[in-house]
């Protein structure tokens, strides 16, 4: 399977406070890739690097098989981009903005644009600055989808939108993907949203890619274990230990957060003289939080 987006050893720095180091993204073609991370993790910066809006200090970027920034024009002609903040001239009317945008894309589909406008219930004669936040979000999606891209780069497209609008927008994206087989790269800090529609997840924190795997792998393998009598160090666990800390409250023992857990692994504790008393499933959000906590405390991690 080839990658729609691939970066190797990507490095970028702004001043002294923030840097992206050794970023290795692998976004499979046709996937819906959720790019998770807290605020300030570098998600928007990464997207801007992919679009050559910023220049990396080192490393390579390949998007849709083209090198960035050398072949950026070819990349952009096949990429639909929805930024975090509206980027279109707000003084334009919707109609004018559509015509402006269409002039740059050979693949622009007028009918699809009309259909989406109707679907989102947007009036062509209205000025963009007069649109509500939700309407603006929908309009930006119209611009991106009507140009029939092979890759959609969505930077927190539903941020600040009400649930209804959010559902509308993401439904349109999913419909488009199902029709075209396009790749979607969506950055968000809304874990549940990503969980619902993405089949790949990358987690970024403080300029580094903490984890990158399928959503199923991410969700299914993370458990919270309650363990008593475990020695301080336990050799060669069959799972990935994400965190280990004393249990709070009256119940004795330790709370372990692990990934890659399977039921037969109970034997591991017994062989070490410990006792496993409880196994709890963690949802994606909890797993995400644990993953971040682990990476910040510099616990060993692994990728896919």
């Amino acid at each position, binding site marked *: 399977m080839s990658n729609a987006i691939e970066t190797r050893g990507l490095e970028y720095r702004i001043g002294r406070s923030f840097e992206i180091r050794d970023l290795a993204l692998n976004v499979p073609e046709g996937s819906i890739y959720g790019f998770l991370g807290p605020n300030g993790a570098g998600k928007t910066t990464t997207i801007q690097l992919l679009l*050559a809006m910023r220049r990396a200090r080192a490393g390579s970027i390949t998007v849709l098989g083209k090198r960035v*920034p*050398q072949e*950026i024009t070819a990349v952009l002609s096949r990429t639909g981009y929805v930024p975090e903040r509206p980027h279109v001239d707000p003084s334009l009317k919707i109609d004018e903005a559509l015509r402006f945008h269409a002039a740059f894309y050979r693949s622009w589909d007028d009918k699809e644009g009309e259909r989406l406008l109707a679907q989102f219930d947007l009036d062509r004669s209205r000025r963009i600055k007069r649109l509500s936040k939700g309407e603006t979000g929908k309009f930006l999606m119209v611009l991106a989808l009507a140009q029939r891209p092979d890759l959609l780069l969505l930077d927190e497209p539903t941020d600040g939108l009400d649930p209804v609008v959010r559902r509308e927008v993401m439904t349109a994206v999913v419909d488009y993907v199902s029709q075209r087989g396009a790749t979607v790269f969506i950055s968000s800090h809304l874990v549940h949203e990503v969980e619902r529609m993405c089949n790949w997840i990358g987690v970024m924190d403080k300029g580094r890619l903490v984890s990158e795997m399928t959503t199923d792998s991410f969700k299914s393998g993370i458990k919270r274990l309650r363990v008593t009598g475990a020695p301080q160090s336990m050799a060669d666990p069959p799972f990935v230990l994400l965190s280990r800390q004393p249990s709070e409250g009256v119940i004795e023992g330790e709370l372990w957060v692990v990934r890659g857990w399977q039921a037969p692994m109970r034997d591991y504790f017994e062989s070490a003289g410990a006792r496993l008393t409880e196994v709890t499933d963690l949802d994606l959000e909890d797993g995400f939080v644990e993953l971040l906590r682990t990476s910040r405390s510099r616990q060993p991690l692994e990728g896919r």
Partner: protein
Amino acid sequence: MSEFAARTAGCLSRGAAAVKAQPIILMTGLVMALLLQPAHRLESQSTAEYQVRVDSLRVEWERKRDAFIELARELGPARIDTIRTGPFTVLVDEPLVELMSQAAPIAWDALRAELHSDSMLAAIKPVYFPSGGGSRTTERSEDVFPGPWISETANLDEVVDRVILTVGAELRLMLDEPSRLWLSANPLARVVAERRDWPGAASFRWIYVELATSGSAVGRRCFDGHLPACRSALELEPASDPATEWYDALDRRRLIVRGGVPRGLGTIEEWRSCTEAGDDIACETLFRARLEGSVTHPVSTVAHQALVETALQMGGVGAYGRLVLTEAPTIADWIAAVARAPADSVIEVWYSDVIAARPDPTTLTAATGWGAFVWIIVLAAVATRSTRWRS
């Protein structure tokens, strides 16, 4: 041996320095050497005869020494020297001696080629040049002028520019006072082998603008090609009535308005009558009163000088000599004598030169246009190379 040679050289150099500082020492020494030449013949004479001989030589030496000292005193400060070239005699400060020695023959050749007149050549008088440059007469000859003089050194070296490059000749003022003023305080005196100093085209451009925007009716008619009007504007003959010959009613009124309220040259009522009511008679009265104080000439002395230069060029060989020597009752006659052609012919040529010298429009020159175009291209290219827009 080497020490002896060094000491000898040291003594010689100290001696040379002493001699240089006190030339009279050298002069005395030379004189003495000359006077004492026959001394070798003393060997064959008796002591008494030797004594007489020595006394005689001593007296002779003292007499010549005194004469030399008197001569040096007469010459003034030791730093003044004399240069002679042909009949030219020039007193020059020491710093300029060498330069002037080389320049004088060249300057003289240039003047002689220009003047072609023995009487002019014979009129040359010595001139004293102070070390600060410029020139002035010596204290003893107040009337060195009129006569040609070297105003500056000639060009000595075509390869190395030594500056100061013209040979000048002061005009002999054969004309009366008004005629001198006609030519202005700047004498038309720069006679250079190539007439290098004559402004030429620049002056004619200036005259063109002057006539095109003339504030006098006669000037405007001259610009339109009426040559008798040019003759009148150039004042080749004295105007019988400048107020009406040169100016019309509108001109007079303009000049009165421009001159402001008169001081002692008319009444306020007359002035108001002229400027506000447009009364021609009042304007003319005021104008005539003004003319008595100072004449507003139709054209400037630049135009006059240009006319003289035209006459010189038309006159060919010896024209400058005629310029300097001719005594003529009117300026028109003088011009005609210089040019060896009627004054009207000179005016015709002068007018043609003026019209041909119409200045190029300043609204848009080629340099400005192309310069702006190039900057537009360069700056537009810079914009595309901005870091934001560079891939």
